[in-house]
């Protein structure tokens, strides 16, 4: 524990003097949620992606390329190291497992409490099982997807207590530790792995090693030498207020706008095709373009990862242009794929609302099909298409599943609002950002639905009192 906080301070002090990460551009660190704050201190100018070690490791194995990976679990650190044999893992810090409750609780017998834990796949959930054995309690049955959500459960009194990291508890004013496991009972260590994959070669492997070492994530365990600094926990907590709500909102809006622009012509093309063309291919086209609407978004994200991932048929192209996976454009692409079918369905509906009678009438004036499409069909369907665009916009701004898998947790560059809310939920002190972002997403949804209704009404008005 002591080591952990001392590392925090040390890193903070050391960072500016390292200079390795460059003056204008920081390095990219993927860090386990529980050391996310340390990474931020060490790398304030760079990108710090914070999440469950297992998820981050999976992203790296799927082609993400941070400069440093810090895992809360040796297993995942080794898995990543296996794929990147040039670099060795280093044990950099340790934490302690605790049983936490709300501040105002004074339990007598811990095992009588309903104790929640993270899922077993998450390192803290794995440690919780060891902790339960040490205490002689039953294995926890209430399992949250991650520690952030587990803390929310605790506050909502879904569970009486929870197995958490000590750092999480100290960083959260509402919680306290009622039992602290000895480090010999439950050993929790953090491992760092410097990586240098395509795109980050400017650092060089030696540079990375130096950066790690100098930043305190070194083999020598600099943190061991440093004393605990009073007030350090406070720094941890306030650091979270730097969640850039405005940046996330703007990034979301931009993603929504780009997706609508990208989807506009395909929506018109496929919408018209599905509304008017009746061939044996219609069902096949429908199946291909509309499937992301019903396929779980997570599966869509996985499919994208497969298509744009390493060792695939697109890899020569990706070698030249770079993979969109785990980038901001990746978020746009994932949102696009998931939102396009909704746009197509709405556009198809808009075209179907236009009676072919009007097209025949136009053609009976000697005008070509294309002319009639431009002057009759499209203008009559247009308000309905715009209404579809509004829904597409709302869908893309709120996209989560596919984006989370394909674009990962875009902390620094901003992702969709949903990603940011999810990330904030996992971050101690992120509640305020969660509420602001949730409110904003509600407003945005209301705006989109209102726009949809307005334009849908506009189209209906065309056919209202026509003599």
């Amino acid at each position: 524990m002591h080591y952990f906080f001392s590392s925090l301070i040390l890193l903070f002090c050391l960072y500016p003097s390292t200079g390795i990460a460059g003056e204008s551009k920081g390095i990219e660190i993927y860090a386990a949620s529980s050391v996310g704050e340390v990474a931020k201190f060490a790398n304030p100018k760079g990108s710090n992606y914070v999440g469950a070690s297992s998820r981050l490791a999976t992203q790296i194995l799927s082609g993400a390329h941070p400069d440093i990976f810090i895992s809360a679990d040796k297993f995942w650190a080794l898995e990543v190291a296996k794929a990147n044999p040039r670099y060795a893992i280093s044990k950099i810090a340790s934490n302690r497992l605790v049983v936490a409750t709300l501040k105002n609780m004074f339990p007598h017998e811990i095992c009588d409490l309903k104790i929640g834990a993270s899922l077993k796949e998450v390192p803290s959930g794995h440690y919780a099982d060891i902790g339960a054995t040490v205490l002689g309690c039953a294995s926890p049955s209430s399992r949250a997807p991650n520690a952030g959500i587990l803390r929310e459960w605790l506050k909502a009194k879904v569970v009486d207590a929870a197995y958490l990291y000590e750092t999480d508890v100290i960083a959260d004013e509402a919680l306290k530790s009622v039992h602290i496991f000895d480090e010999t009972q439950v050993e929790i260590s953090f491992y760092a792995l410097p990586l240098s994959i395509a795109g980050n070669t400017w650092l060089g492997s030696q540079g990375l090693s130096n950066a790690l070492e100098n930043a305190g994530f070194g083999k020598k365990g600099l943190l061991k030498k440093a004393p605990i600094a009073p007030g350090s926990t406070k720094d941890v907590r306030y650091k979270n207020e730097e969640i850039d709500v405005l940046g996330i909102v703007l990034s979301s809006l931009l993603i929504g706008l780009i997706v609508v622009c990208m989807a506009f012509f395909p929506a018109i093309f496929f919408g018209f095709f599905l509304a008017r063309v009746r061939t044996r291919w219609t069902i096949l086209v429908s199946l291909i373009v509309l499937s992301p609407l019903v396929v779980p978004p997570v599966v869509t994200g996985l499919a994208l990862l497969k298509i744009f991932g390493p060792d695939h048929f697109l890899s020569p192209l990706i070698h030249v242009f770079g993979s969109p996976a785990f980038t901001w454009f990746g978020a746009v692409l994932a949102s696009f794929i998931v939102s396009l079918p909704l746009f197509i369905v709405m556009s198809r509906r808009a075209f179907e609302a236009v009676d072919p009678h009007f097209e025949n009438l136009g053609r009976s004036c000697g005008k070509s099909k294309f002319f009639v499409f431009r002057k009759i069909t499209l203008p009559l369907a247009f308000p309905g298409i715009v209404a579809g665009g509004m829904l597409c916009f709302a869908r893309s701004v709120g996209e989560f599943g596919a984006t989370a898998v394909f674009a990962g947790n875009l902390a620094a560059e901003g992702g969709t609002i949903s990603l940011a809310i999810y990330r904030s939920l996992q971050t101690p002190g992120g509640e305020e950002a969660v509420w602001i972002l949730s409110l904003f997403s509600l407003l945005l949804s209301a705006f989109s639905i209102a726009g949809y209704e307005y334009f849908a009404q506009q189209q209906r008005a065309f056919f209202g009192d026509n003599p």
Partner: protein
Amino acid sequence: MKAQRLHALFSVTQGGQFFSYDIDSSGDILVLLGPSGSGKSTFLKGLLGTIKVSGFIKSSQIWMSTKEAIFLPLEKRPLAWVPQLRFLFPHLSVLDNIRFGLEKESAKERLDELVAAFEIEHLLEKNVNSISGGEGQRVAIARALLAICQFTEGGFLLLDEPYASLDEELEQKISGLVLDWCLQRGIKTVFSVHQSDRIGDFSRLSDVKIDAYKLVQKGKGLKTERLAFPSSLKGV
């Protein structure tokens, strides 16, 4: 200028009903009579090519022939059409509706002439949803007359219950205008009406050849039957 011959021999099943048409008209006007649901609109749809029929339709060229596997798309057929209902494009102004079939400004004079004759100048800038049914029908007829002008060999004007929304006085006037316009230019007018008096004023048409057909129930379907004109039209 003499109107073209129209020879249509085709059959079609629509809404569970079998229709068979055998029409050979070389006159200036073709009238198809019959009560509602007797297949008048279906005949016009066959001429337009918007329903699938078997047989053939030809004027100076073949419009469609099942045997020869020929199908002329609607926009290539030498016709203009005034449907029974929903005859205007709802998103265009009255003026844009009228000039929809025009090639640029080449027929500006004709447009002005028609607009004046049909007394619709005051409607030109209006939204089509704000004009009456009768006004709309005049606009639609004007549009069809202008659109048909682009055919050098007369062409065919298809009128589906054309004067249903007009009062008697206006009907006489508009039908007279339409007939004059078409007769001058060799345009064959194809009427579908349920009563002969909805065609217009025939009293002055003694020198005009009119072919009249009636749809009658025969066997399991409806078939066309040629009527002698004008005596047979009276009292239909």
